[in-house]
């Protein structure tokens, strides 16, 4: 009784592509292809511009950007101060600007305050620093539960908060985009900005994970 009409299969991507050995194209694949042709024929889109847009968000913009912001904030107290006071301007110092990051707010995690970000109404997310959001961030369970049961959600991600830690959930209902500044883990003393950035995960900047200390 529980299959859906739409296939949410985890097939390998080449199944998407046309060809003698590929699986048949799904309804949605056919529909998007037909729509693109229609819009190209009407002169409304240029397929090469589409390629550039895809390439930008698939290979150039991603959580590595946010990790650099975090690493710099950990090393440079003056930058951190600017980052918390005017997040958009401080992030722009590193060149990260643009769509879905026009107005940024950085939230600092501390031993007593844990911030976590959600968008219950759609899936707003700070693209210039984190790239496009993962499926779970856009999913019903995350959007439904994070505001009503944040500790339950965090536990599923492996973050078990003590009762005296305050949880602050930020629901991105307007055009502000939130980035969590996670706590710097112990054992990272003396590291360079580049080395530190390697430890900073996307999930820690959404607020559903801590940054793990380096393994010895």
């Amino acid at each position, binding site marked *: 009784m529980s299959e859906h009409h739409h296939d949410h299969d985890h097939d390998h*991507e080449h199944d998407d592509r046309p060809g003698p050995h590929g699986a048949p194209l799904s309804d949605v694949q056919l529909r998007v292809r037909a729509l693109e042709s229609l819009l190209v024929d009407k*002169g409304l889109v240029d397929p090469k511009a589409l390629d550039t847009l*895809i390439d930008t968000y698939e290979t150039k913009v991603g959580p590595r950007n946010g990790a650099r912001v975090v690493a710099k904030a950990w090393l440079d107290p003056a930058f951190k101060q600017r980052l918390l006071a005017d997040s958009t301007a401080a992030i722009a110092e590193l060149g990260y600007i643009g769509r879905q990051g026009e107005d940024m707010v950085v939230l600092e995690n501390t031993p007593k305050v844990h911030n976590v970000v959600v968008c219950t109404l759609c899936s707003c997310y700070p693209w210039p620093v984190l790239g496009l959001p993962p499926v779970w961030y856009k999913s019903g369970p995350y959007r439904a539960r994070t505001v009503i049961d944040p500790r339950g959600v965090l536990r599923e991600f492996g973050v078990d908060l003590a009762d005296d830690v305050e949880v602050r959930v930020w*629901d991105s209902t*307007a055009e502000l985009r939130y980035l969590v500044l996670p706590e710097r883990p112990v054992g990272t003393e003396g590291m360079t900005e580049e080395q530190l950035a390697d430890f900073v995960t996307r999930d820690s900047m959404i607020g559903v994970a801590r940054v793990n200390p380096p393994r010895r």
Partner: protein
Amino acid sequence: MNGIHDLGGMHGFGPVDPEPNEPVFHHEWERRAFALNLATGFLGRWNIDMGRYAREHMPPAEYLATTYYEHWLYGLERLLVEKGLVTANELATMRQNGRAQGLRAIAVEDVPMMLRNRRAARMGDRLAPPRFKAGDRVRTKNLHPTGHTRLPRYARDKIGVVDRDHGVFILPDEHAKSGTKVPAHCYAVRFEGPELWGPHAGPRDAVYVDCFEPYLEPAP
């Protein structure tokens, strides 16, 4: 609208299910649907709030049974017809009956500027004096418009405290309807868990919601 998209606070959705090493896109059609949305959005015939409102019209059963980029595809098709870029017949047949007039497709060389553009929802802070300031107690109004709104149902008719004034932004409600840019202060408002969820909330949980000034009234 009190739509199916307004998921905050619902039970019954099961666990969050993160995928290890998730790719940015799972299918080629997702790439194209994503880029088609951006490229047509750049044409300037609708704004971001119209885009969200279009997706909110997806029939509820379909909304829940489909994935994110299917929502985008639904919204895009709706807007293309609604805003006259494509006729209903062209969409039904997927064949053009004439080239678009007065619009030029975004070219490769336009893309970087389009993505870097900082023109967004923020308006000049002097366009409207703030009614509230950090520390003020406010009550969200009990609004249930059929139009677009960004005040989630779980945060209506609730008392909170203004955490900060983000400045003046375009009010999405009117923007989605007519395109008119009504300036409104937008505040991060902090709601204690028990105020939102009653005795089932953790006492040290709080939710911050970005609220436009017309959603708020002073609380005693």
